[in-house]
């Protein structure tokens, strides 16, 4: 792995003040993440389960190298083996629920300067990880993460 890459001329979202971010909550959590996670680690405070994680996890140790650039990620396809699925999680030292996808579709883009519209195609590889993880601080936490 090339560990010397750095970003250029911009700040990542985690370095900016939280100004725009908000979340759609779901009232349909019965049998879902919160209840299950509480059973796994009852000593965790409720806020640690329902809130936004403040300690980042570590990435999975391996992955693919598109354009020859190593990344800590396996796409859903092609399946690389030996198992019938590629690892869905982006984070290591993890015990929890995962989802990942590759989907395609289309939509409409608007140029806000001219008001003109155009049709664009999309590919989305999104996912989630929700559960226990060992964070960058070496401690075990519960958190929910989106892969975008």
């Amino acid at each position, binding site marked *: 792995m090339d560990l010397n890459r750095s970003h250029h001329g911009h700040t*990542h979202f985690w370095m900016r003040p939280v100004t*725009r971010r908000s*979340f759609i909550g779901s009232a349909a959590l019965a049998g879902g*993440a919160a209840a299950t996670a509480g059973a796994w680690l009852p000593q965790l405070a409720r806020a640690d389960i329902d809130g936004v994680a403040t300690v980042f996890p570590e990435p999975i140790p391996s992955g693919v190298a598109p354009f020859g650039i190593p990344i800590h990620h396996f796409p859903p396809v092609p399946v690389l083996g030996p198992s019938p699925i590629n690892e869905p999680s*982006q984070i290591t030292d993890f*015990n929890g629920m995962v989802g990942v996808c590759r989907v*395609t579709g289309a939509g409409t883009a608007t140029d806000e300067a001219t008001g003109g519209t155009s049709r664009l195609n999309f590919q989305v590889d999104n996912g989630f990880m929700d559960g226990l993880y060992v964070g960058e601080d070496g401690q075990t936490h519960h958190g929910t993460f989106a892969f*975008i």
Partner: protein
Amino acid sequence: MDLFNGAVGTNQVHDFNPGIRDNSHLFWTQPIAGDAVTFNLEQGNATLAADDLDEEDYHNLHNALLDGPSDPASVTFDMRWAAIADPMNVTDPVHRFTGRFRLASVQIEWSADAPGFHFVSDPASTTNNVRSVIGRERNGVFFED
């Protein structure tokens, strides 16, 4: 979340993701509220929804992988996994992960905003599922549990 002015994979014009974390190289992963996810493996469904999530627009995959120049952006999405196969137990000793998983189909409806730009997808029912998975996973220090 990638947009193409042409067939998928050609002439990419937007690439929305949170960036690669500087110190660890955690890949395109960001914390979200716990109630953004619902999950039930036995019933075979899961949802992920977020509103106005801060991202970067790297415009194309190569630039994104290099963590090159980007514009501030945001995305909103509502996506649903529905299982299309029975649960399967998987243990991968090479990549050291194990768990119980189901192949699934995903439908998504989403939008994105970047400077001077707005995108809204067609209805979720028009989504083409390529390959999707939900499951319970253990890896790293939890692999041997």
